[in-house]
């Protein structure tokens, strides 16, 4: 027997989605947002706005955030705006969706330098068009501010989360709406699935354009994060059609290495090319000989 509450949790097709009544964050997502906001404020670029893209799953009237993608070092930002690095976030999204094709784009978090805890008119002009392409034609937005200390009444609101001086105030925006609506927020146990990507985000930003091109040209390209020789490494695997052989590119810092994996045998290619797509095609050409 199905209760009405239980039926709400079943994933629905876009046409069946209702307006959001709550945003749910996994605990690691919540920790990531506060920790990276605090870390950003301590950097030389700490006066700039910063932000994150939110990925997760959308059910009937609820969205659960399961991953945060950082704006990236190559973001364009100042004290009054932030534009994320789109190539790095696209590659990050493709990597995350390898393991879960239910993950969808839910919304955006960004910060304001003062005490403006509501999205600006400029935010609205971009967001109201952008939500047309989201599930349910509705997005989730949060504004980070560093004004939480001493604001007890505000901080107890259901759509606000605070940690020390930092706060995030959560909203939804539906297609055609004239304004954002406060959105109650709740935490549940769980991971930030993008956490492993943080260790290779520099490599990911450096190679994003070439790796995306490669994934568009060759089928079954897979990405992973592995333990490298001195730190984590970003890996791109290109399966070959014959006998299970794989070209593996290992990107660790500025070092790019090419391997040919054939069962238990691993051979390292004796050439260097920092341009990953060119390197892979050079390997493929060599293997044709």
């Amino acid at each position, binding site marked *: 027997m*199905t209760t009405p509450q*239980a*039926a709400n*949790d*079943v*994933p629905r097709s876009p046409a069946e989605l209702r307006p959001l009544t709550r945003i749910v964050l*996994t605990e690691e997502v919540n920790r990531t947002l506060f920790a990276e906001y605090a870390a950003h404020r301590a950097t030389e670029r700490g006066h700039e*706005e910063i*932000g994150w*893209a939110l*990925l997760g*799953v959308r*059910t009937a009237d609820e969205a*659960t955030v*399961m991953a945060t993608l950082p704006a990236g070092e190559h973001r*364009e930002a100042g004290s*009054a*705006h*932030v*534009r*994320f690095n*789109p190539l790095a*976030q*696209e590659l990050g*999204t*493709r990597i995350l*969706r390898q393991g*879960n*094709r*239910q*993950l*969808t*784009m839910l919304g*955006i978090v*960004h910060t304001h330098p003062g005490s403006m805890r509501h*999205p*600006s008119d*400029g*935010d609205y*002009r*971009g*967001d109201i*068009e*952008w939500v047309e*392409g*989201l*599930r349910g034609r509705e997005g989730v937005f949060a504004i980070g501010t560093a004004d939480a200390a001493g604001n007890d009444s505000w901080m107890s609101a259901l759509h606000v989360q605070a940690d020390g001086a930092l706060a995030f105030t959560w909203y939804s925006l539906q297609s055609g709406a004239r304004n954002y609506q406060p959105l109650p927020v709740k935490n*549940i*146990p*769980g991971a930030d699935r993008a956490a492993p990507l943080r260790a290779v985000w520099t490599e990911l930003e450096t190679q994003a354009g070439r790796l995306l091109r490669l994934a568009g040209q060759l089928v079954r390209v897979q990405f992973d994060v592995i333990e490298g020789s001195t730190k984590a490494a970003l890996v791109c695997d290109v399966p070959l059609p014959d006998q299970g052989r794989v070209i593996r590119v290992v990107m660790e810092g500025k070092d790019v290495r090419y391997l040919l994996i054939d069962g238990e045998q691993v051979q390292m290619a004796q050439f260097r090319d920092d341009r990953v797509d060119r390197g892979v095609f050079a390997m493929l050409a060599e293997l044709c000989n």
Partner: protein
Amino acid sequence: MDFRPLDELERKQLTNALRGNAEQGRVLLLDRRDTSFAGSADEVPDEEVISAIRSVPCHY
């Protein structure tokens, strides 16, 4: 075989998928290596997600 309790999110996803299967006939996916639960068939198309990530507007 590795047994461990599901966390709240995993349990919720499994419950939702089982409910979707029972009520609407939606497919349950199993990991081919160990038959563990690998989600349901309610996939979001790549084009939809990639289009959204590419078009994130500037924020002010």
